[in-house]
């Protein structure tokens, strides 16, 4: 089995009765994801695309055995939804919501430290194991099962790279968007560790961007712990300092978080860094 999501996934959708929740519920069901429950407080008893809706995650878990959840809840309520899921025993929580206050995420991460739950996101496209399950908002049809594990801070940029891989016949074991916020649940290093121990993954693609130092830490981790080949792309070489580039986390502060620094650190430990997104596929192909 691939990592995090697959045939064993039993998905609950938090915020299923909202516009986005409804739309993606249908998309995920069409992709073959086992969607077992929806949650919207006050709407328990309704049905959305054949999925039963519950008032609380606790009730959804107790009734349907949900083990994974995806959150389409507006930002002011999203951190509460994450903690509710973890408290109810959900093991993997994917939070799509953009715009959660950063201090809310500080609190959420502290809360999650005391539980077994893993959070992906927020402000992320989610996770897909091509051919098995899609827990996210990415276009399923561009993916192809295969050996490349992909982890990224972006959405459409990831699709761009996936498309390039698929076009070359390079399928993906699992592709994960970890989110564009300054504070996120699962980091590059967490994903690298999972890919390293996943027998279905033969090559790892890491897509980073300006802001913070997660890529630099990932580079050190790769040098020390990862035996599989890694290829990277870093967005934002032309980004000016001190300006937020769309993502809350994509900002060069002082001299910290530049693409140049990240690329240099990755290259210093022998990781191939593509100069444009589609080149990732070329670099991966060279080393397969």
């Amino acid at each position, binding site marked *: 089995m691939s990592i995090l999501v697959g045939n064993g996934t039993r998905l609950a959708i938090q915020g299923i009765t909202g516009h986005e929740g409804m739309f993606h519920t249908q*998309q995920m069901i069409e992709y073959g994801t086992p969607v077992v429950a929806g949650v919207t407080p006050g709407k328990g008893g309704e049905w959305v695309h054949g999925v039963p809706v519950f008032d609380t995650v606790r009730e959804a878990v107790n009734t349907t055995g949900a083990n994974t959840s995806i959150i389409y809840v507006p*930002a*002011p309520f999203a951190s509460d939804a994450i903690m509710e899921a973890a408290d109810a025993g959900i093991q993997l929580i994917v939070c799509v919501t953009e*715009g*959660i*206050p*950063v*201090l*809310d*995420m*500080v*609190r959420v*991460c*502290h809360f999650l430290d005391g539980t077994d739950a893993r959070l992906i996101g927020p402000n992320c496209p989610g996770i897909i194991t091509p051919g098995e399950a899609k827990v996210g*908002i*990415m*276009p399923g*049809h*561009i993916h192809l099962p295969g050996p490349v594990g992909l982890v*990224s*801070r*972006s*959405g*459409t*940029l*990831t*699709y*761009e790279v996936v*498309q390039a891989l698929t076009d070359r016949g390079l399928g993906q074991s699992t592709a994960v968007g970890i989110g*564009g916020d*300054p*504070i996120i649940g699962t980091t590059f290093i967490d994903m690298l560790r999972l890919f390293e121990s996943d027998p279905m993954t033969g090559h790892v693609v890491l897509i980073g*961007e*300006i802001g*913070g*130092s*997660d890529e630099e*830490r990932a580079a050190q981790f790769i040098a020390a712990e990862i035996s599989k080949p890694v290829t990277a*792309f870093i*967005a*934002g*070489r*032309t*980004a*000016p300092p001190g*300006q*937020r*580039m*769309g*993502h*809350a*986390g*994509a900002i060069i502060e*002082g*001299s910290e978080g530049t*693409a140049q620094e990240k690329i240099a650190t990755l290259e210093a430990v022998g990781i191939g860094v593509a*100069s*444009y*997104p*589609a080149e990732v596929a070329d670099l991966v192909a060279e080393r397969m």
Partner: protein
Amino acid sequence: MKLHEFQSKRILAGFGVPIPQGDVAPTPAEAGQIAQRLGGPVVVKAQVLVGGRGKAGGIRLAADAGEAEQVASQILRMTIKGISVNTVLIDQAADIREEIYMGITLDRANRKPAMIVSPQGGVEIEQVAKDTPEQIFKLMIDPMLGLMDYQIRNLAFDLGLPRVVIRQFTTIGRALYRVFIQSDDTLTEINPLVITSDERLLAVDGKIVLDDNALFRHRDLGELRDVQRQSEAERQARQAGISYVKLDGKIGCMVNGAGLAMATMDVISLYGGQPANFLDIGGGAKADRVAAALRIILSDPNVKSVLFNIFGGITRCDEVARGIVTALNEIEPQVPMVARLVGLNEEEGQQILADAEMATATSLVEAAQTAVELASG
């Protein structure tokens, strides 16, 4: 969202941080009146949301009300890093013995707020961190427990502060953390925090950067946004929910997704061009948003060509293309354009654009090359 010095200091004062007496003025005459009221020497400070005011001559001492008015009239005519000065702050001049730094920011790697202090106040802390890292004292704050008094005291002794100001220092540190938490800041800074010759602490300059994502719970703070000083393009982008950052190049770009938008800029640069902006139109690509984005891009007279890079994903490309055509018909832009659409029904989408006499490309590299050619043509 950055707040002005005077706004930041008022918030700090509301939490008990001592600040100099002072007030803001939009005209030299009012500046003079404030100085008159304050008495004695004053500092006249340009209120602009860019760094390096001091070096640019935007902060000046005045011995009395007459000089204050004169200095204010000079500063109010200035333009600092492209921003014209509309307001000055007139503060009572402090009798400074030492300048220290105190700030709270978010440490992303540790996922915690961190308090940073340094005996090197009055200069940019990033510079101090680079030049004399041993002069930086950093303290991780457990976000659940908050900042403890003993931690602030430890920092005070790290700094070797005179005993007589330690209690004030602790009070100010506590207040700074309360401001950081209660107004959802990403940076709360006093720089310099001065020790006056009569051994009082005084926040001579303050800076607050608010978390944009948290403004929904701080309507009052959101209203402090300096609308006047924003460019019209920034204002429109905010209103339309579009992420836009103006840059200095000639190639405008419209992209869906922040990462892809940055990558698009990078590829333009890779092929010898210079992006005129970062622009993320967000999910989908409805005609009205495309039109708004296009207007924003074209409001920059430097723009010589425009690159559309839309990864449709779940959205159908023919719909996106029709949205673009509708927007083009409405705006009738005079610069050449190239579009690259990927996703469901992408051939159909490209056909619609080609019919509208727009250049199309299948790859990002091809689109970037075309945009660069169009801009230099």
